[in-house]
């Protein structure tokens, strides 16, 4: 029983991180029908910048409590990722706005590779350990273990998602974003500056991605130049599972994928009679992706594509 609760907790925490990243994919898709495959790399760079920043502060002999050091790192990583997201859109995607859909997609994959290699040049090819600055005290929760960090990740993720939903549903910028996603030409005719809206979409998605990257690095105690690939693919799967282009869908898809992966890997050994262990957990994401694409391509909460005109 405690394994079940433990995996449930792990799944919720990983799932809330997937959800944050999936929001970045789905926002960009909703507005310009583009899968921004470089989003995973933005997540990675957020993690890397934070680690570098914390190490720098430690080297300088700054005496601060761990959570404040982490906050300092985060406050450095968020603007870097935002700037990166802004630049990517401006340099790589905007010139292809009216191009056939395949062109920006290939550009996205190319960008993803370029950013990976760039990160490797800067930070090397080795795993970077996350500085041990955070309390490691473990709470007992009905027989399962949970750390302060995990609780913080969960709460912060949901605060950020709440903030995003408020922004989209209740503010002028959010209204402009929704109008643009439904009909860019008419939105432009109403005086909405489409370029600003698209830039802001990338900037906001990248900020969420940077926070998620730091969460991943802190949760797994490490980061590396290739981490963006797998986490990006999983978050993309989560977005597709929920229905790409749908914000609530991204959240539901992310949590669901986290739970499926976590519970699945917890019982994978038992299910296969010890043939496969929990180190095969990555297969769940792709089984889910394939199943969704076959049985419900529009995702759980997605609309039929034909409705867009």
């Amino acid at each position: 029983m405690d394994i079940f609760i433990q995996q449930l907790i792990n799944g919720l925490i990983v799932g809330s991180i997937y959800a944050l990243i999936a929001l970045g994919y789905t926002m960009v898709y909703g507005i310009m029908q583009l899968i921004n495959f470089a989003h995973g790399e933005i997540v990675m760079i957020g993690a890397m910048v934070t680690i570098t920043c914390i190490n720098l502060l430690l080297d300088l002999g700054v005496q601060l409590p761990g959570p404040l050091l982490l906050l300092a790192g985060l406050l450095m990583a968020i603007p870097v990722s935002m700037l990166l997201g802004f630049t990517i859109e401006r340099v790589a995607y905007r010139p292809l706005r009216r191009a056939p859909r395949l062109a920006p997609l290939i550009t996205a994959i190319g960008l993803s590779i370029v950013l990976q290699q760039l990160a490797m040049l800067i930070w090397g090819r080795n795993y970077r350990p996350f500085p041990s600055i955070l309390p490691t005290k473990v709470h007992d929760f009905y027989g399962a273990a949970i750390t302060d960090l995990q609780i913080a990740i969960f709460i912060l993720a949901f605060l950020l998602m709440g903030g995003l939903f408020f922004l989209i549903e209740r503010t002028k910028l959010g209204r402009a974003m929704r109008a643009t996603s439904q009909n860019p030409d008419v939105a432009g005719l109403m005086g909405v500056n489409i370029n600003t809206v698209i830039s802001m979409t990338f900037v906001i998605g990248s900020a969420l991605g940077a926070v998620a990257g730091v969460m991943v690095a802190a949760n797994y105690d490490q980061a590396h130049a290739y981490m963006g690939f797998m986490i990006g693919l999983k978050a993309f799967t989560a977005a597709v599972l929920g229905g790409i282009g749908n914000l609530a869908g991204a959240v539901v898809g992310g949590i669901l994928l986290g739970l499926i992966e976590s519970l699945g890997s917890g019982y994978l050994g038992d299910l296969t009679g010890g043939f496969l262990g929990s180190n095969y957990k990555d297969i769940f994401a792709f089984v889910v992706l394939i199943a969704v694409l076959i049985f419900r391509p529009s995702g759980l909460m997605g609309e039929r594509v034909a409705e867009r005109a």
Partner: protein
Amino acid sequence: MSTPLLEIQGIHKRFGGLHALNDVGLSINAGEIYGLIGPNGAGKTTLFNVLTGLYQPDEGRFHFDGHDLFRKKPFVVVRSGIARTFQNIRLFANMTALENVMVGQHVRTRSGVIGAIFRHPRARAEEAAIKQRARELLEYVGIARRHDDLARNLSYGDQRRLEIARALATRPKLLALDEPAAGMNPSETEGLKKLMQKIRDDGVTILLIEHDVKLMMGLCDRIAVLDYGKKIAEGRPEQVKCDPRVIEAYLGVAPE
């Protein structure tokens, strides 16, 4: 009446070999309801698209209310005071009626992205004003009760009214309506006619494309007739109705 509100001269628009607009000129005075009729494919909607900046004309002159709008982008055209509706309704289907009208006010509001995120008092006040104005406009076009419904759930006639409210939200001097009565039943059409007269009486000039000739005759101050991209007649409704070229364009020539 001094200078006209809108004046175009010698407008040409070609699509490949098709000469969609051939030397079209017209002038609309402030306070008029100006009708544009013509057989299908005559170039009415093309002219509309030129007047609202969606198409860039190849040649000609285009002046509106003291601005030179020749080959200007749509949002510049909107800002100088021309708003339009579409022949095939183009609302933001998944937003509420109220939100559709609120988007329409984008062009007239100041606070930008930063204000939207940090919500300082001025941005909040502006947001409240936008909402209030949107409610008033829905009331004005007669669909106030539907303000919380998604645009796609409104009836066809109400969607047409919502499009008009959204266009009015941009505070236009000229409202261009592309077949607003299409698909309406006679009582809806009568209501629309009253709405258009009310809008005109409140100081907004109207340019109207419509197939319903009876509606046009009773409503418009002046009518221009397009055929094959050329203006073949212009004048008061009763003059246009009797013009032999117009009769020929609509009915063909009797065989000898």
